[in-house]
């Protein structure tokens, strides 16, 4: 069986890139090939010019991967885990950066707690921290927000967007499409091991986002109106027209093209 076929794509330096697709599409497999966790039968992958097989040392040094599976080493505390991970990358005395990462991920209070004793969401945070110990220029996050509470999710995105602003390239897979829509400037859609779309988020929304923006208006007397908008600028004139007809607006809901529609159009 083939998990990936004919996947060819280039992520630009400094980009915030989304890798989307239904369960089993091959996102994790693709990440595993990039990370050197599995070897592809054919083809090649380079991380900032370094081939992931031939020049694996340079490739792996430039890459930080947050795996999808919630894995941990039960023998160690959070701080030990992060120190050991730094050591694997040849870094000694990394405590200043480790402390900073722990602070951003709200892990400081858990620094000396054994991994075994952490909740699922806390373990996920440690996985993110582990991927960042060596300040990799390319960060790959395989569903980083699965099972994570609202507060961390916001903190995590703040941290990740800051890293992106500082020049780190981000590759994200997620099933929360609002997250992808909000953060990713370009998106690849994967289906059954093949790329079915590869474009900027804006273009994808424009092409596959379904009909234009609509506004649903409920009047005080219970009547309902659906307004087809050419753009947001069109909203006020259309509402004014309704009011001129004596309609008193009680509720208003905007429905705009979103990634979910794009996703369904492309993958179902």
């Amino acid at each position, binding site marked *: 069986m083939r998990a990936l076929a004919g996947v060819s794509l280039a992520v630009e330096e400094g980009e915030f890139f989304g890798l989307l697709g239904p369960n089993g599409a091959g996102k994790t497999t693709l990440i595993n090939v990039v990370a050197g966790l599995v070897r592809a039968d054919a083809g090649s992958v380079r991380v900032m010019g370094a081939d992931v097989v031939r020049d694996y040392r340079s490739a*792996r*040094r430039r890459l930080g991967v947050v*795996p999808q*599976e919630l*894995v*941990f080493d039960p023998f160690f505390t959070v701080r030990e885990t992060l120190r050991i991970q730094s050591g*694997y990358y*040849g870094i000694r005395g990394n405590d200043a950066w480790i402390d900073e990462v722990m602070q951003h991920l709200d892990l400081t209070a858990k620094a000396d707690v054994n991994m075994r004793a952490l909740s699922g969401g806390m373990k996920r945070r440690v996985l993110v921290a582990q991927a960042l110990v060596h300040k990799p220029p390319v960060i790959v996050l395989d569903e980083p927000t699965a099972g994570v509470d609202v507060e961390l999710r916001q903190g995590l995105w703040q941290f990740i967007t800051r890293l992106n602003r500082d020049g780190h390239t981000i590759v994200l897979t997620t099933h929360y499409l609002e997250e992808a829509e909000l953060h990713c400037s370009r998106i690849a859609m994967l289906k059954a091991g093949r790329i079915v779309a590869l474009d900027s988020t804006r273009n994808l929304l424009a092409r596959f986002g379904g009909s234009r923006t609509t506004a649903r208006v409920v009047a005080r007397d219970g009547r309902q109106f659906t307004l087809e908008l050419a753009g947001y600028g069109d909203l006020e004139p259309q509402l004014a027209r309704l009011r001129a007809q004596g309609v008193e607006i009680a509720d208003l809901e905007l429905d705009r093209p979103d990634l979910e529609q794009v996703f369904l159009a492309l993958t179902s």
Partner: protein
Amino acid sequence: MTTFWTLFAKETLRFWKVAMQTVAAPVLTSLLYLVIFGYAFTGRVQVYDGVSYASFLVPGLVMMSVLQNAFANSSSSLIQSKITGNIVFILLPPISYLEFFAAYVLGAVVRGLVVGAGVLAVTVWFVELHLAAPAWILAFALLGAALLGSLGLVAGIFAEKIDQLAAFQNFLILPLTFLSGVFYSIHSLPAFWQRLSHANPFFYLTDGFRYGFLGHSDFPPAASLAVVAASFFVVSLLTLKLLQSGYKLRN
């Protein structure tokens, strides 16, 4: 070097944090062997002139602990990482297969030697300690632990489940150590079994190691050392090939 030292330190800390299971328990087991076999056979079995059975037994028990624990360390560490999935933490960083090999084998050597030293330390309360040729003791202990550490890696690479590893341990490592002359001199065996024992590389380990304590052995210690060194060479080559290919680790 930081990469190697970190992986080595992780391998060492891992067993040291649960020393009750990984050090104290095997020391107790060996002590039980000594008490049961030592007292049962002392005075009845005389292997070398002027050497009590218990004095004959102690080096064998120490070597057996060194070998079994070295094997247990690398194999269980690897299989646990594979099963729990935390092996990604060592597969993602730029760790070369040589560093990987050296760190796991050296971790296994430390575990083997710590347990071996523990066994020796408790047995001196019961049996007078001879140290005829300490350099041989060290050489055989180091090579034996390294050989088994390397075999442990091979087993850990091939095994996909704990029971497959247990089979490796119960059907290969355990018989080979028991039949290496820990409890008896192979000269006391029928000719066929004597010849078969010579095909067992662990026999040379136990015999040469015992020479270091007693100054007596069934086989010339230098020749034993050569056999052991050659075995280690072959097994490490195989292990390095497996690690380099990524077999069952990166697939």
